[in-house]
């Protein structure tokens, strides 16, 4: 137990407290740290419009990507749970994008979104549509990144698939005897039975998607005109580019509070839609 407990204290709890303390300080590189009270917090909440911009962008992306990827992953898992020919091969293909995250993927998708010679707009032109300018358009940059996130549904799909295969067959047989059709069986048996799996996956996806960084750093640099200024990118800039570590800590804490609040909301909503008997 010791290494993990030590690790938690040294690299999670300790820095968290330190971070909170730093958020009340002017903490640069050259000058000595100085206590400034609520200055950073006032600046972040009332004087710096980019803070709100970054939170707005981040929430927009998170909602879009969590909803889209969860729904897609669940639909694919439902289909894969049918007697599909070549199930193993398909599972491999669907999971493949999930093992290659990070910079190479960001570079690849920058190229895919190229407005004139990228594959999406080339395909769209093929059917007579002139595609948007994606990453260089303030309106389309976030939808583009949401679309990109839906490429990596594999991890969620595997989790859902395992959940689906844990639903006892007898439930379906009984419903079938009662004359319930396929849609009815999905809504009344499958969804409630796997709702705890969906819940857990939702929580982790929200936490993850609110901390997007690589895409913004590699693909858009926060642009155009700050329309993809993700919260973590803005924190990175303040803390590691302008070296305002105190202010960066304040921003990190604000994001932390937002993530905590959203997680709490999802936890609260649990009693409305997560089926209790399925929780084990």
């Amino acid at each position, binding site marked *: *137990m010791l*290494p*993990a*407990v030590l*690790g*938690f204290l040294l*690299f*999670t709890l300790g*820095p968290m407290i*330190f971070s909170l303390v*730093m958020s009340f300080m002017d903490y640069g590189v050259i000058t000595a740290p100085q206590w400034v009270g609520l200055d950073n917090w006032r600046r972040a909440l009332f004087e710096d419009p980019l803070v709100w911009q970054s939170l707005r962008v981040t929430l927009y992306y998170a909602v879009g990507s969590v909803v889209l990827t969860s729904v897609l992953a669940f639909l*694919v898992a439902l*289909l*894969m749970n*049918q*007697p*599909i*020919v070549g*199930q*193993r091969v*398909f599972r*491999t293909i*669907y999971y493949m*994008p999930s*093992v*290659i995250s*990070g*910079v*190479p*993927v*960001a*570079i*690849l998708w920058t*190229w*895919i979104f190229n407005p*004139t*010679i990228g594959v999406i707009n*080339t395909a769209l032109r093929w059917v007579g549509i002139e595609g948007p300018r994606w990453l260089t358009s303030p309106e389309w940059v976030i939808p583009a990144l949401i679309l990109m996130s839906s490429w990596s549904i594999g991890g969620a799909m595997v989790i859902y698939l*395992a959940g689906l295969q844990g639903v006892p*067959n007898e439930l379906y047989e009984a419903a079938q005897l009662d004359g319930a059709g*396929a849609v009815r069986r999905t809504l009344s048996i499958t969804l409630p039975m796997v709702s705890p*799996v969906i819940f857990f*996956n939702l929580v*982790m996806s929200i936490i993850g998607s*609110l*901390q997007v*960084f*690589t895409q913004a750093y590699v693909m858009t640099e926060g642009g155009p005109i700050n329309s993809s200024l993700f*919260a973590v990118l803005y*924190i990175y800039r303040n*803390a*590691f580019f302008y070296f305002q*570590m105190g202010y960066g*800590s304040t921003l*990190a*804490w604000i*994001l*932390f509070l937002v*993530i905590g609040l959203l*997680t709490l909301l999802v936890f609260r909503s649990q009693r409305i839609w997560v089926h209790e008997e399925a929780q084990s």
Partner: protein
Amino acid sequence: MTDVLERPRVTGRRRWTAGRVVAQLIVLLGAAIILVPFLWMLRTAVMPLEDLFRLPVQWLPTTVEWSNFAEAWVRGKVGRYALNSFIVAGLATLGTVVTASISAYGFAYLRSRWRSALFAMVLSGLMIPGIVTLVPTYVIFRELGWLNTWMPLIAPSWFGGGAFSVFLLRQFFRTIPRELREAATLDGASELRIYARVIAPLAMPAHAAVAIFSFLGVWNDLFGPLIYINDDALQLLPVGLAAFPNPQGVTAWNLMMAGALMGMLPCLVLFFLFQRYFIQGIVTSGLRG
């Protein structure tokens, strides 16, 4: 546990109903869409640069230039960065597997009244966003004089390897029949011996899963090397690829795709070799690494 996944729910029925045909077709179409970015990357990587900008767009290369890979390797210094990434990811993975395993063993078997409280505490690390600890961690490592070294990227892994690894291993340990441990105890084996001779070998698949996820995590991480490493000779692949040089002012997309492909290759190879550990790891923990 993977067996569950290999088996279709309804067995025996081999009738091609309309619904089955539609499901099969949608799955097929989805798989084709998933593959398009890979194929587009491969197509671009082997094309001459001037062919890329030719309109109408060529779907398939008319000239294939395999030399793009060699050129990207040299220009992007892929070899140097990849070697650095291998060393760092390797050492971090070793630390994760060893210390997560010891920790998880404790959480699975040791009798202590603090056990569940401590486990809950470690597990809460899963929910705490990494960003909130980042700035102070940087300050600590700076005070230690570790900036521009690989230490900040390796050392934390040697402290339990993170909540996910501990959780996955502990879940797996708990599926091992109690009788095995009891029998070994009756034979007079010490706790260390039981761990080394009975539990650890049985939990090989879970250790493999933890090792793979840990390796991929470090290999793909951009933030760490970005803030800690300045020296180009020590730089890792993600930062190196993100700063791929395009001296003529024209983005050499063919070389960038070749570089990106080389950057992904170790992950894809790991995946194809150890696919069943990936799936098992996800299913055991209900998490995605």
